[in-house]
């Protein structure tokens, strides 16, 4: 047992911290700190900065232009990123598609698509969920029928995050209706500019439009865009889901959020003193801070096991649940902290306003609280995670 980082790890942390201090634009970190939305250009700007340093693909091997970091290095990098209020790295190309292409893609696919991901030539989005399927991912009905050198795709995807920015989508499509449901699914790369594709935004409860429906009406897709073998897409999708889950707890997000909460609780006055001096509110902060301290170590235990080559199992379900509980509680406390100034509704478009209603830190807190209710729903709802724990760990 040793809770300490090695000297090399500590040096790496310093290197990351110094880099962020120098290269992370304040304009971006202010937006992140106040919970405001980022534009497509904001994301692209930040990706380019990281890519210039060679740090964009933390989970890619060096041969493909990645960093080759181990799990602990990745953890340190993510930790420093969130503490510095850096924008998160958009995961669709880098964390999701990249590893699948490396494992299952053809040489042509790898050499064409991977550099484009690093250079920001493509903005990828994910075409997994379908209407009515909920947490049941195998319920794929969008069909792809072979027609010469193409597939003809018909159907609908939903909950496609940031699909409005994307020019490419990786999709699960049904190529066979025989046998088990899982056995007729294929993994297809589709150009969003193809004729027959329509993207419709879904406005969420917070008023933001970050997710979309994507409709496919006889969309023609080159068969060369099939990843791996036909009808084996389920395997690749599962690989993607289990591959990169070390950040599932969102420790960094929670730490940054806790710091913001404290900053606000120091600024807000209640009964003539800073809110953070209120014993009941301070106790609620203490509770979430204590939970987070423990969760960070639970996360390190899993990270450390992953670094030693063990595949994270149902432990990631525990981290998912506790991570969402902690983050949602921080969101709720932060919204509570801003008091009556939680009430004004400020749309994404207006939130950069130079003359905000109330303190600038208050503007996005209710939106953030509402938006982050999604954390316990998507990526396998917390109910699904509990059932996984009951079966896989408790063997009930």
């Amino acid at each position, binding site marked *: 047992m040793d809770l300490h980082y090695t000297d090399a790890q500590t040096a790496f942390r310093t290197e990351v911290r110094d880099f962020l201090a120098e290269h992370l634009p304040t304009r971006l970190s202010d937006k992140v700190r106040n919970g405001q939305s980022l534009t497509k250009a904001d994301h692209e700007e930040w990706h380019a900065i990281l890519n210039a340093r060679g740090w964009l693909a933390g989970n890619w091997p060096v041969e493909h232009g990645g960093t080759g970091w181990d799990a602990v290095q990745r953890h340190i990098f993510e930790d420093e990123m969130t503490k510095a209020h850096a924008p998160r790295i958009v995961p669709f190309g880098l964390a999701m598609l990249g590893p699948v292409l490396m494992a299952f893609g053809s040489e042509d696919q790898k050499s064409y698509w991977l550099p484009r991901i690093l250079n920001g030539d493509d903005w990828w989005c994910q075409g997994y*969920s379908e209407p009515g399927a*909920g*947490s*049941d991912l195998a319920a794929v009905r969008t069909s792809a029928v072979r027609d010469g050198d193409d597939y003809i795709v018909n159907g609908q995807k*939903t*909950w496609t995050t940031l699909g409005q920015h994307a020019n490419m989508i990786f999709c699960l499509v049904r190529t066979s209706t025989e046998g088990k449901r899982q056995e007729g699914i294929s993994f297809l790369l589709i150009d969003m500019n193809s004729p027959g594709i329509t993207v419709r935004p*879904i*406005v*969420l*409860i917070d*008023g933001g439009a970050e997710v979309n429906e994507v409709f496919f009406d006889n969309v023609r897709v080159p068969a060369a865009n099939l990843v791996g073998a036909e009808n084996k897409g389920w395997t690749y999708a599962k690989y993607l889901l289990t591959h990169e889950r070390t950040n599932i707890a969102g420790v960094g997000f929670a730490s940054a959020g806790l710091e913001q909460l404290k900053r606000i609780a120091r600024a*807000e*006055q*209640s*009964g*003539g003193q800073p809110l953070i001096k*209120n014993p*009941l*509110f301070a106790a609620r902060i203490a509770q979430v801070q204590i939970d987070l301290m423990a969760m960070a170590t639970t996360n390190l235990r899993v990270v450390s096991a992953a670094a030693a080559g063990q595949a994270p199992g149902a432990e990631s379900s525990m981290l998912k649940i506790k991570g969402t509980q902690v983050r*949602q509680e921080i969101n*709720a406390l932060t919204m*509570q902290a801003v*008091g*009556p*100034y*939680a*009430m*004004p*509704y*400020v749309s994404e478009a207006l939130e950069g306003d130079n003359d905000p*209603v*109330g303190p600038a830190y208050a503007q996005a807190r*209710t939106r953030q*609280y*509402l938006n982050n*209710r*999604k954390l*316990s*729903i*998507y990526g396998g*709802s*917390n*109910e699904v995670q*509990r059932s996984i724990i009951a079966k896989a760990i408790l063997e009930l």
Partner: protein
Amino acid sequence: MNFDLTEERQMLQDGLRRYLRDQYTPALLSQIADSETGWSDVVWSGLAEIGVIGALFTEDQGGFGGAGFDIALVAEELGRVGATEPLIDTGLLGGGLIAALGDADQQALLEEVIAGRRQMALAHAEPGSRYDLSRVASTVTDGKLSGRKAVVVNGGAADRLIVSARSSGDVADEAGISLFIVDADAPGLTRRSYPLTGSGHAAEITLDNTPGTPLGAAGKGYQALAQVHARATLAISAEAIGLMDAIRILTTDYLKTRKQFGQPIGKFQALQHRMADMLIEIEQARSAVINLAGHVDADALVRDTHVSATKTLVGQAARLVAEESIQLHGGIGMTQEYALAHLARRLVMVDHRFGDTLYHTERFVALAVA
């Protein structure tokens, strides 16, 4: 002891429920969201006609109700459809202060309020005063008001504002708070109106040597403010009951129809038990609202003990119901288009008016525990 409605109240409830069910269509809601005030003129007139505004006032005051149970009844019905009309601001706060303190001339304004022809708002809270009712930094000098007022709900639509200002004492003293009736277009008054989460609008208001007509005795405004806040807290708590009932029904219906893994998800025991827990907390909140309705005109200690008990419990139930109902719906519960969104947003905001669970738990401790 009797928990049944009187015949008159039963009739009012039936009529109001029917009216709101017909009026509050999705089309109206989207119209309201795009409007300048965040509520509907047509519905406001309709409510006045049915007698909903009059139900907030006694016969002496020109109404035909005015008891706690009258307030709770109408507010709950408005909550049930997520109605956003300014019953609290124009009626209980504006009208209520005039009823309590106004001279004969000023009472004419109340008549217009009850008739639905006048909009009002209470410009009392200030940036940094949070939920402290006695914290007033705005000043009055030679009858002219200066200061900043924060999140004045309905402040943009109001043609008359009731403004508090300190005529004596320290910033947090109960004594020394004076009230004034101020014209919305009075000189030196600027309003910045903006939409609220869950509809309705509020305004940031700046006063700079703005003239106002005194309402009640100078420096004696606190007691009346406390009283109308108690009644407003009752109303928003009862509104929350209506919201929670509606959300609970929406969620139960969804659980019955939505199928996953081969059966309606309402058949999953874990979800059943969570729904049962939610129902229990709603019933607890309902009982708390009944308690407050029965004691809202009691002496200050008894009244405020119930105000704080009720607002605490309602705030807790509101968070539970909003979060659980979104969770149990899954993705659809996250979308603006679905009926839950509007109801849940309004419900979440209940904790941010008239004191949150933290504020009221501490006040309850001071009043009834230690």
